[in-house]
């Protein structure tokens, strides 16, 4: 589909549906997303220390043939998990996604991300103001950031 058409459709849908949904205004953490180093991205999120935890269950491929589509599934078994963060250490900007849970949402998310090259995938969770982490090396055959 052509981009211009896609945009027109998206705008038309949003206008036509007149949803009461309140979307975040300015709720995008620019400093953290623009950061080119993991340390700066973590600082942008407000992380000072992380505790390694095997109670974050990460399903990720050992080898991703297509870096444009790397499926990830994350479930946190840490009680009171409020947020999940996905970082890819070697992507141009490591911070990839932030998910904040409320009102009965399970600390679970599955999505697909792009990886520029083989890298450590770093998953953080936040519970009770503390940050927990688990990491996994994912090998990428064909990089996906130019895709």
């Amino acid at each position, binding site marked *: 589909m052509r981009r211009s058409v*896609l945009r027109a459709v998206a705008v038309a849908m949003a206008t036509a549906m007149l949803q009461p949904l309140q979307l975040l205004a300015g709720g995008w953490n620019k400093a953290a997303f623009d950061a080119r180093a993991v340390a700066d991205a973590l600082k942008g999120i407000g992380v000072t220390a992380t505790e390694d935890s095997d109670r974050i269950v990460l399903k990720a491929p050992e080898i991703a043939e297509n870096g444009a589509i790397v499926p990830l599934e994350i479930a946190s078994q840490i009680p009171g998990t409020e947020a999940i963060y996905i970082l890819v250490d070697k992507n141009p900007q490591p911070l990839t996604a932030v998910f904040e849970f409320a009102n009965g949402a399970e600390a679970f998310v599955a999505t697909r991300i792009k990886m520029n090259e083989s890298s450590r995938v770093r998953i953080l969770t936040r519970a009770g103001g503390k940050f927990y982490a688990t990491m996994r090396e994912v090998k990428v055959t064909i990089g996906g950031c130019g895709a």
Partner: protein
Amino acid sequence: MADPMKIRAQLQGDVADVKILIFHPMETGLRKDGVTGQPVPMHFIQTLTATHNGRTVLEAQWSQAVSKNPFLNFRVRGAKPGDKIMVGWVDNRGDKASIEATLN
């Protein structure tokens, strides 16, 4: 008209399992146009919000490294037939869309 989003929400006990697919280019700004050789400008979804009967259950922030045509699966406890799940997004150009599903 093609929908810019698809949603599937299924009840498993009292848990709503919600899967969404958004038709969006998620341009990184690094890709070059095949014809002109010029970089294609960044164009990506930055924020996504999901509600359950109007109450926010999930707020996501994304970078350009979420895959093209983003897929997202999340789960909400305390759901029952007739409940409404709504998901909406806004991209870096201010374009937006939303979709709703009723659980059954």
